[in-house]
């Protein structure tokens, strides 16, 4: 074991053989514990450390260890405040806070989550903390996204320097359950949302913030919104916003929390979570099963309840759902009921908040009322679906059993669906509103929904577009799976999806207020409805076929059919959602998607613009307080200061691979760029800053070190981007446009020239000189020496000296000429 100490890090090289790793060098969890054990053994004491980074080479493991100091083990981890007990046998203990690695963490704190091999840690919010039997400590986290993680969907959306986006919606990437040990540190995230519910941060708080956020990124539709409803994902809004000092988080919705706790245990018993979680290396994969399991837990319950209360059709659905849910989650039905009631209450609250008039009455209603609401929402949805078919899918989820039938029927039988609506209206005022809004606006209401609404929209869009949905299902699957219309499709995609349907319902309720607003904003869309219906009819027929067939082929057919639908939808306002959805799927989307997405995107942009306008204005206002960054909204050609990249130091948590290897990889991937005409004064870090500010791309940069033959006029730098797209973008942009560095140098970028194949390259000038005495030669080669004037060697060396001097002259002359040329050009500029 060799050890190297640099800064606060101690890096170790450990022979790999010690860990009995096979030829395949996967990083295994056990490896970490093995390494820690060995390190402790080596130092003959108990050390507190954390392996921050591990790099496995063929022959050795290199790991960096943070914070090495003696400790007694107790200090490393300590539970603080208990919260409740859950689980089948009360074997799960929930906590509100704990101390880990000397840092206190509490529920809803933001943390860095680290993952091996990742340069920058993930950022997440703790939403649940618990301990299972056997000292297994888990946290449920709600993710934030760094802009670079979702740059694909950000498009031209500007982000603040240190802005991150909060995951919303449902689906992969929203939450995960991870082991508590994967927390890498506390992260100060401040919500700068102008929302009146958000306690505004003080200037100092802003200054101290590592990151700020005010927007959400819907993991399902991959859309960005600055509006937050009462819940983001399954997290209450007040936990999303800044916490007021002294505010007791539990104060309001104890019921909720209790419920939540009750539901949590459910999650735990369901073996899914632990299993998936157990593969530690994968834990951090956001998309991994754990999230699904979480969803399942919540969702199945709702479905079950809804189903129970609903008519026979619903029962069918329920049974199905129940079965599925059991399969998936294995959760007891009772629990599910409980959860439903809880959720319903929440919904009621939401409704109250949202709907001023009718909601109160609804809120007054008991769980049944809630259930009714649920139903109502479903009902309207169905109606909508019939009309628009889009709606159906989401709502349909509750009625899953019905949906396939209904869809077929509904397509034909739209009127009956209307009847459903009327019923709904009777039951729920809120729903009525929704319905009214939805009905009047038709598709618009659906389309108008915000990101959260997007889910609904997703559903809606899905319904008309069932085929499309299928295509998109990759994204939507979580939500869509629950939905009946989709079901056939969903089934194709995944059984797991069923649970989400429940969520959809709940979301609908939540979303309603937003929808109402949207509707207002959207205004007219009766025509669109008709169109939709027509389309729906078409689609529905297809859908039914598809559902029956349940074949993937359907999706293709649908895809073709979908395009028009999408466009129409887009017009109506739902297009956004659709677009977002289509584009959102992270590579999962099937063939039909690209077309849809493109068409939709354009339209959606236009359409969104109206809605977004206010968002944008909001955004601007938000941005201002956060940090007046130069790049933000100043005109494109204004100067910007390339200060240090925000949070740059954070990356020091994770030691990077050696530069050579990074360069090689980057070179192979085409992400390496050579910058010319760099100010020789700049350091590598400054280059990184400049690239970050100019292109909003983070990169690794290294100045090409000057040699005797380098030009004194300018330096070169190599930058390694994260993606080839980014590299291409920079190449093109620097070529077509002109980025002027501070002292009037336009930055130039070219592809990297061919890499040197080290060591192989020939070197001239070293000869075997078998001079007079053989012994001398041997010595001469092995040592360094001045040559004596009376040898052949000396004569030949003189030739070399001559050549060296000549070459020096060449270079000097070249550089002088180049300098003159530069001066000439620059003087031109000054004159002008």
């Amino acid at each position: 074991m060799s050890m190297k100490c640099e800064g606060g890090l101690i890096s170790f090289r450990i022979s790999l053989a010690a860990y009995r790793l096979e030829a395949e060098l996967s990083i295994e969890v056990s490896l970490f514990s093995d390494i820690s054990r060995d390190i402790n053994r080596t130092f003959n004491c108990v050390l507190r450390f954390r392996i921050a980074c591990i790099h496995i080479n063929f022959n050795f493991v290199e790991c960096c260890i943070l914070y090495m100091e003696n400790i007694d083990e107790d200090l490393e981890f300590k539970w603080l405040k208990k919260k409740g007990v859950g689980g089948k046998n009360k074997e799960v203990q929930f906590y509100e806070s704990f101390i880990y690695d000397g840092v206190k963490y509490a529920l809803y704190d933001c943390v860095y989550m680290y993952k091996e091999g990742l340069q920058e840690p993930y950022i997440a919010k703790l939403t649940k903390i618990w301990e299972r039997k056997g000292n297994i400590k888990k946290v449920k986290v709600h993710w934030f996204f760094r802009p670079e993680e979702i740059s694909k969907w950000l498009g031209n959306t500007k982000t603040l320097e240190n802005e991150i986006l909060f995951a919303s919606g449902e689906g992969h990437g929203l939450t995960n359950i991870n082991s508590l040990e994967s927390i890498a540190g506390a992260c100060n995230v401040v919500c700068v949302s102008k929302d009146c519910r958000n306690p505004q941060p003080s200037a100092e708080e802003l200054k101290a913030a590592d990151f700020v956020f005010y927007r959400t990124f819907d993991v399902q539709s991959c859309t960005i919104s600055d509006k937050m409803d009462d819940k983001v994902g399954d997290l209450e809004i007040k936990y999303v916003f800044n916490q007021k000092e002294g505010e007791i988080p539990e104060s309001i919705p104890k019921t909720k929390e209790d419920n939540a706790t009750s539901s949590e245990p459910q999650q735990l018993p369901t073996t899914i979570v632990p299993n998936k979680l157990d593969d530690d290396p994968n834990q951090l994969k956001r998309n991994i099963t754990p999230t699904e399991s979480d969803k399942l837990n919540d969702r199945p319950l709702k479905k079950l309840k809804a189903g129970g209360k609903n008519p026979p059709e619903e029962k069918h659905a329920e049974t199905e759902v129940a079965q599925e849910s059991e399969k998936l989650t294995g959760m007891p039905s009772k629990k599910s009921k409980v959860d439903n009631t809880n959720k319903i209450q929440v919904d009621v609250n939401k409704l109250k908040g949202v709907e001023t008039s009718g909601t109160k009455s609804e809120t007054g209603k008991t769980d049944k009322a809630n259930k009714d609401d649920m139903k109502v929402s479903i009902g309207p949805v169905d109606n909508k679906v019939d009309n628009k078919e889009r709606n159906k899918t989401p709502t349909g989820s509750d009625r899953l059993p019905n949906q396939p039938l209904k869809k077929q029927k509904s397509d034909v039988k739209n009127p009956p669906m209307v009847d459903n609506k009327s019923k709904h209206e009777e039951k729920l005022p809120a729903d009525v509103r929704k319905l009214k809004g939805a009905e009047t606006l038709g598709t618009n209401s659906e389309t108008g929904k915000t990101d959260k609404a997007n889910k609904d929209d997703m559903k809606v869009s899905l319904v008309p577009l069932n085929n499309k949905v299928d295509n998109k299902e990759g994204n939507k699957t979580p939500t869509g799976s629950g939905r009946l219309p989709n079901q056939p499709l969903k089934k194709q995609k995944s059984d797991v999806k069923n649970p989400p349907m429940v969520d959809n319902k709940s979301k609908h309720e939540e979303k309603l207020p937003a929808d109402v607003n949207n509707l207002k904003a959207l205004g007219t869309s009766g025509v669109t409805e008709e169109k939709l219906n027509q389309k729906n009819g078409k689609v529905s027929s297809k859908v039914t076929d598809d559902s029956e067939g349940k074949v993937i082929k359907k999706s293709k057919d649908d895809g073709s059919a979908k395009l028009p639908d999408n466009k129409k939808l887009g017009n109506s306002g739902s297009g956004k959602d659709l677009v977002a959805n289509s584009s959102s799927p992270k590579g999962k989307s099937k063939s039909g998607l690209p077309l849809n997405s493109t068409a939709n995107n354009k339209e959606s942009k236009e359409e969104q613009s109206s809605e977004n306008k206010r968002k944008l204005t909001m955004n601007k206002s938000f941005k201002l307080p956060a940090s007046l960054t130069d790049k933000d909204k100043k005109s494109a050609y204004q100067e910007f200061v390339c200060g240090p990249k925000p949070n740059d130091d954070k990356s020091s948590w994770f030691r990077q691979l050696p530069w050579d290897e990074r360069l090689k990889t980057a070179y192979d991937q085409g992400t390496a760029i050579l910058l010319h005409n760099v100010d020789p004064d700049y350091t590598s870090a400054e280059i990184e800053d400049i690239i970050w500010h100019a292109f909003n791309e983070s990169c690794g940069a290294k100045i090409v070190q000057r040699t005797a033959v380098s030009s004194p006029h300018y330096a070169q730098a190599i930058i390694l981007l994260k993606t080839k797209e980014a590299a291409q973008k920079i190449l093109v942009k620097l070529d077509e446009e002109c980025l002027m560095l501070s002292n009037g140098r336009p930055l130039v970028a070219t592809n990297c020239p061919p890499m040197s194949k080290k060591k192989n390259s020939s070197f001239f000038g070293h000869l075997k000189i078998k001079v007079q005495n053989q012994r001398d030669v041997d010595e001469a080669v092995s040592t360094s020496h001045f040559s004596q004037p009376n040898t052949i060697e000396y004569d030949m060396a003189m030739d070399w000296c001559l050549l060296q001097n000549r070459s020096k002259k060449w270079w000097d002359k070249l550089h002088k000429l180049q300098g003159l040329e530069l001066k000439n050009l620059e003087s031109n500029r000054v004159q002008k």
Partner: protein
Amino acid sequence: MEPSTEYAAFEKKVKKTIYLDNLSPLVTEAVLQTAFNQFGTVNNVQFIPTHFASSGVYAALVEMQSVRQADEIVREMDDSPFMISGMPRPVRAQKAQIEMFDDRPKKRQRKIVCRWVDPSHANFEVAKKIKNLTKKHAAEASFLLEQQLAEEEKLHNQQSETLKANYKKYELIDGAQADGTAKRLATCYETKLHDF
């Protein structure tokens, strides 16, 4: 460390450092350590990486314990050719420059201000020209480097030819002495043969 003091320390380090090129790629850190420990104490050796095949320059930075040692080495190596790990091509030394260092700290807390140039602005054209000129210069430099390599190769071949020819002569002479030809010739010409 304060940026200013850090930079001062760095400048000091630069003064103590010599830059070497014309190095063989086979030269390692250990070789350099040994080579320059003859003159003083080597604090640190750092190779300047050659990422690109075209750069073809093998260079290293050797930090000595004192500025005096570094100056001394540069002067001596200027006077007479110094061989490291091979001959007859001598290693060339000069004082290191700040820009040769990879890990240099920021000079001071300065602001870097950049801007995208408006294409309609007059300077845009000039900037474009400068960009092209930069590329041209880079091409020129790589061409010159190629030429230099060619010259080196030429000299290398030439020297190796000369050496071969010389060796041939030596062998001839040795052979003549070894097989008695020299002696026979001496008797033939009635001269006395001296051993040497």
